[in-house]
């Protein structure tokens, strides 16, 4: 099957879901989500049946990367993320229903829910396109598709002030970054005269490249992409938006948007890194951003008390590690021994997906049955719901980078890269960050296992469906397996 069918199927699925929502009377609109999940599962399976074309002469391939297992891998990440987001969305349904408008008398009690399930599908398609985009135009449009869907999804809870506030913040800053991106694209186009990444690379690596202008373009593009992935000091939106957004969407943001953002960052920056005239300053800047990101993300997470905010800072922190890997790109003139940053980033993102989504899945289950998202609300959870606590413990252990989990392998690879490239400053701050990570991730574990529950807290076990539990187990196993045998993930793209 041709590779571009994948997105088409996903979009079609999304449309079908919208149609069903509009025209079919459903008792429980969650069926729409189930449909979407089944569809996504099928698409995920189809990923392994993809055929690459013999020739890529057609106009289409100008916009669509070909023969690249990397892009398939990122599509996979997008699909898995969306799948889990839909799952979370079904769990989160009661809150969505309560927080959106109360419908007219004769309307469906779950009015407005169908779109909540359908929008992630379009975002997913956008992410998948992003994964394959190899042209400024296609990058721009797919990126914007994702961004605009996220504006909507973040602000989805119309009756919830937090959600709307998050939406506005995201909107303003997102648009700002888009403006910078566009300006940067304009300059890049001006310097190279082409929209093709291949052409851009060729132009930038030629000896008569206009260094000043190229660096200016680089700065503008970097700024906006750093914004997307949450690099400091462009990360300020993240905690606020993560906190306000509906929990499944927060998960989606932190994984899908970040993964795609990093892939685009890799794609757009690699021409600059390939140019000997530019690479020096470029890596310094990347290093500086990574440095700040690591520092701020990890340290500011230490005092956090709201769980989603904590995960937001954690997301920043992990962006720091990823940027650290990126900053450790070997110079083109050196023979690239060891792992390439791209591989490391890809692995890291895969691991990050597993652990973050597991964490969010648990949190969604908890949030759907408890009012608070404060860390203190988890007190004594271990006795109340041992399984959920264990799952969250796994997620936290992996995020903290405890060995034999996927998270550790990711950090290990990043550190190795930094040592190979002798990036000592980054290494030190990375260490500080990882150490801080032990604290703030284990804080959750401590709250669940060590603290006594509040006096008035319920002792009823939290409910989770069999499917949810199964998926949690799958994620836990995946975290461990990827931690012991990284080949399982690495094999997907190398």
């Amino acid at each position, binding site marked *: 099957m041709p590779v571009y069918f994948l997105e088409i199927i996903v979009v079609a699925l999304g449309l079908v879901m919208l149609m069903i929502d509009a025209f079919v009377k459903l008792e429980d609109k969650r069926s729409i989500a189930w449909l979407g999940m089944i569809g996504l599962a099928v698409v995920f399976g189809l990923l392994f049946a993809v055929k690459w074309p013999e020739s890529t002469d057609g106009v289409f391939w100008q916009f669509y990367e070909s023969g690249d297992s990397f892009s398939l891998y990122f599509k996979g990440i997008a699909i898995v993320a969306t799948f889990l987001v839909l799952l979370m969305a079904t769990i989160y349904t009661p809150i969505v229903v309560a927080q959106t408008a109360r419908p007219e008398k004769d309307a469906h009690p779950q009015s407005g829910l169908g779109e909540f399930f359908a929008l992630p599908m379009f975002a997913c398609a956008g992410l998948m396109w992003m994964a394959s985009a190899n042209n400024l135009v296609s990058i721009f449009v797919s990126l*914007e598709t994702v961004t605009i869907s996220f504006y909507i999804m973040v602000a989805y809870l119309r009756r919830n002030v937090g959600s709307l506030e998050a939406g506005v913040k995201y909107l303003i800053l997102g648009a700002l970054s888009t403006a910078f991106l566009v300006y940067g694209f304009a300059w890049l186009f001006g310097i190279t005269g082409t929209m093709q990444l291949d052409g851009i690379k060729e132009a930038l690596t030629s000896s008569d490249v206009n260094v000043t202008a190229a660096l200016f373009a680089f700065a503008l593009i970097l700024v906006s992409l750093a914004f997307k992935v949450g690099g400091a000091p462009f990360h300020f939106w993240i905690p606020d938006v993560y906190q306000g957004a509906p929990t499944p969407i927060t998960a989606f943001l932190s994984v899908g948007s970040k993964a795609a953002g990093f892939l685009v960052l890799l794609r757009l920056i690699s021409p600059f890194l390939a140019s000997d005239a530019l690479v020096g300053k470029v890596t310094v800047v990347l290093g500086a951003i990574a440095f700040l990101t690591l520092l701020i993300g990890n340290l500011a997470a230490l005092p956090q008390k709201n769980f989603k905010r904590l995960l937001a800072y954690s997301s920043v922190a992990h962006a720091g590690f990823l940027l650290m890997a990126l900053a450790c790109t070997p110079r083109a003139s050196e023979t690239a021994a060891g792992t390439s940053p791209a591989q490391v980033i890809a692995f890291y993102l895969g691991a990050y997906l597993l652990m973050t989504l597991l964490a969010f899945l648990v949190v969604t289950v908890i949030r759907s049955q408890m009012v608070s998202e404060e860390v203190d609300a988890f007190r004594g959870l271990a006795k109340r719901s041992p399984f959920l606590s264990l799952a969250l413990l796994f997620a936290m252990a992996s995020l903290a980078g405890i060995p034999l989990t996927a998270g550790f392998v990711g950090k290990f690879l990043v550190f190795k890269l930094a040592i190979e490239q002798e990036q000592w400053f980054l290494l030190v701050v990375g260490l500080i960050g990882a150490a801080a990570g032990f604290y703030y991730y284990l804080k959750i574990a401590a709250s669940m296992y060590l603290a006594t529950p509040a006096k008035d807290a319920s002792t009823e076990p939290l409910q989770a469906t069999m499917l949810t539990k199964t998926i949690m187990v799958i994620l836990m196993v995946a975290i461990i397996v990827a931690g012991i045998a990284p080949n399982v993930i690495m094999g997907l793209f190398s």
Partner: protein
Amino acid sequence: MESAITLNHFLLVSGILFAIGLAGVLVRRNLIVIFMCLELMLAAANLTLVAFSRFNPVDGQPNYEGHVLLFFIITVAAAEVAVGLAIIVALFRSRETTDVTKINSMKY
């Protein structure tokens, strides 16, 4: 001969316009106006794009790829404005304000 208009002129105008937009984003407090300023920044970027297309011709014609990108930018901007205004309206409905400094319930 009069001093010719160079690419620099256009780029500078676009840069200044971009900066004006940025300044607007930073100083205005009305969400809608801020959003307008963001559009202004996009428009400024457009000018750069067109200027580059025109000054770096291909086969004696402007590089129309830039124009095409601009077309997409305008489209996307329109969609963004629609969505953005919808969000702002929704926020106004629940908060009765469009003052950006009052939208800070989540922090630290």
